């Protein structure tokens, strides 16, 4: 039956394959309501896939994904679209609609899902843009914005409908230190001010650890460890220590699987 109410998202026994490769093998993750939860792990370990599974853009091969009392894999296509109004997602690229300006991008969810009068839509859009510091950019087109600004506009759009759960896909990738600082502050601020649940998927250690209440470290298709950020920093598990301290070689090998080096250079072929 439904998950505990303290958890906004509860992933149980999740298994997901791409072709013959197992991306996740019997993974359990619980995202506590009202908190910022970081999901970390090396590049290519399936963090974004996990986010897409939580948002039901992908269907798991086995397992359950409970969101606010509903198991997503059981929902029909139209129920899913209804369900997704509870989510806001910040995509890695921002994913702004390139044919609409900043104002229309943020107004889009309001226009399609509400019957609000135009003046009210305008006020809401300006308030959301004010929150991310871009009220002045309201007339600009997406291609006139820097990478960091795009992400902030996308964030304003993601919170336009006041979602319950905000998912961030690698919010800090490719951002300069100032933009990173702004995003870190915004994620925490929005979470606390709006009382939402945030899931930050990232491999940027310092930033994610600094805003998260709870951390998961994933790798090899499993949850390697979980706990409060300072517990994770001091973990004894060599795999977690390697990741948290950025050690190049260790349980996660520096070398991609290859035949013996000596044989490769001196062997017959």
């Amino acid at each position, binding site marked *: 039956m439904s998950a505990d109410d303290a958890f906004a998202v509860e992933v149980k026994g999740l298994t997901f394959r791409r072709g013959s490769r197992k991306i996740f093998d019997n993974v359990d993750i619980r995202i506590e309501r009202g908190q910022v939860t970081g999901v970390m792990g090396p590049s290519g370990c399936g963090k974004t896939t996990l986010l897409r599974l939580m948002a039901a853009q992908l269907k798991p091969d086995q397992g359950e994904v409970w969101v606010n009392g509903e198991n997503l894999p059981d929902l029909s296509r139209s129920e899913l679209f209804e369900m*997704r109004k509870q989510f806001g997602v910040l995509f890695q690229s921002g994913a702004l609609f390139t044919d609409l300006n900043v104002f229309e991008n943020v107004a889009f*969810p309001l*226009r399609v899902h509400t019957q609000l009068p135009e003046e009210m839509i305008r006020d809401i859009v300006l308030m959301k843009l004010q929150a991310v510091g871009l009220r002045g950019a309201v007339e600009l087109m997406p291609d006139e914005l820097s990478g960091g600004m795009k992400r902030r506009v996308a964030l304003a*759009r993601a919170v336009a409908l006041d979602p319950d759960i905000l998912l961030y896909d690698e919010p800090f990738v490719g951002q300069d230190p100032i933009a990173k600082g702004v995003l870190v502050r915004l994620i925490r601020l929005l979470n606390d001010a709006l009382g939402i649940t945030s899931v930050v998927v990232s491999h940027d250690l310092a930033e994610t650890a600094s805003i998260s209440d709870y951390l998961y470290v994933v790798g090899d298709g499993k949850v390697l460890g979980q706990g409060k950020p300072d517990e994770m920093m001091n973990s004894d598990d060599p795999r977690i220590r390697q990741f948290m301290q950025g050690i190049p070689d260790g349980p996660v090998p520096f070398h991609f699987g290859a035949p013996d080096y000596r044989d490769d250079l001196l062997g017959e072929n």
Partner: protein
Amino acid sequence: MAHKSLIDRVALLGRAGLDTVQSMGRSVIFLWNVLLGRRGAGTGFHLLVKQLYSVGVLSLAIIIVSGLFIGMVLALQGYSILVDFGSEQAVGQMVALTLLRELGPVVTALLFAGRAGSALTAEIGNMKSTEQLSSLEMIGVDPLKYIIAPRLWAGFISMPLLAAIFSVVGIWGGAMVAVDWLGVYDGSYWGNMINSVDFYNDVVNGVIKSVVFAFVVTWIAVFQGYDCEPTSEGISRATTRTVVYASLAVLGLDFILTALMFGDF
């Protein structure tokens, strides 16, 4: 690269066959979801109007110019053959029948695949690679209804109209060459045409053809965009596939439809 055994080659062939069948299956489910089911949030007539403009109106120039030249060439070629038999007065009939039955629908469909079809594929593929389709889904708007359906309908509606315009302009171009330049009598150019063109046999059959082509070309274009691998290479492959598959489908279907409509069996 390692030498492949015969069994490996057979397996590869089998896999390619399976991939093709799977992709065809996906395209049917895709079409089903686009056309049927409840209209989702955010959809509306204004989206169709916008697409009719970019898919239909913006294709007008290429259709009119090509129609004009093809009509002129038909008249010129027809005249040079028919004049040997003293039948050059029948050139209007020949131009009209060729355009209405064959070249109008077929050439329009080929030009449409190149001009609008490739643009549709590239646009949708690009939206996929920049996660715009995913973000629509996450906003709770079905991209099949919001992005794909208006484009598909715009193609269905505009291509038969473009084919009609193509034929009309072609017949007019033929008249310019035959009547104004080569001196075929005005009355016999139009008179022979009126007498020999049958509304159901020629005009309606031509329209049916262009409706079928419109359906197939637009379907291929939007599906290839939606189904493409979201990388720049994937988009370029999908765009090529759109033009190649759509052109082959049009030419193949044209033969089948012609055999059904005009084959006496």
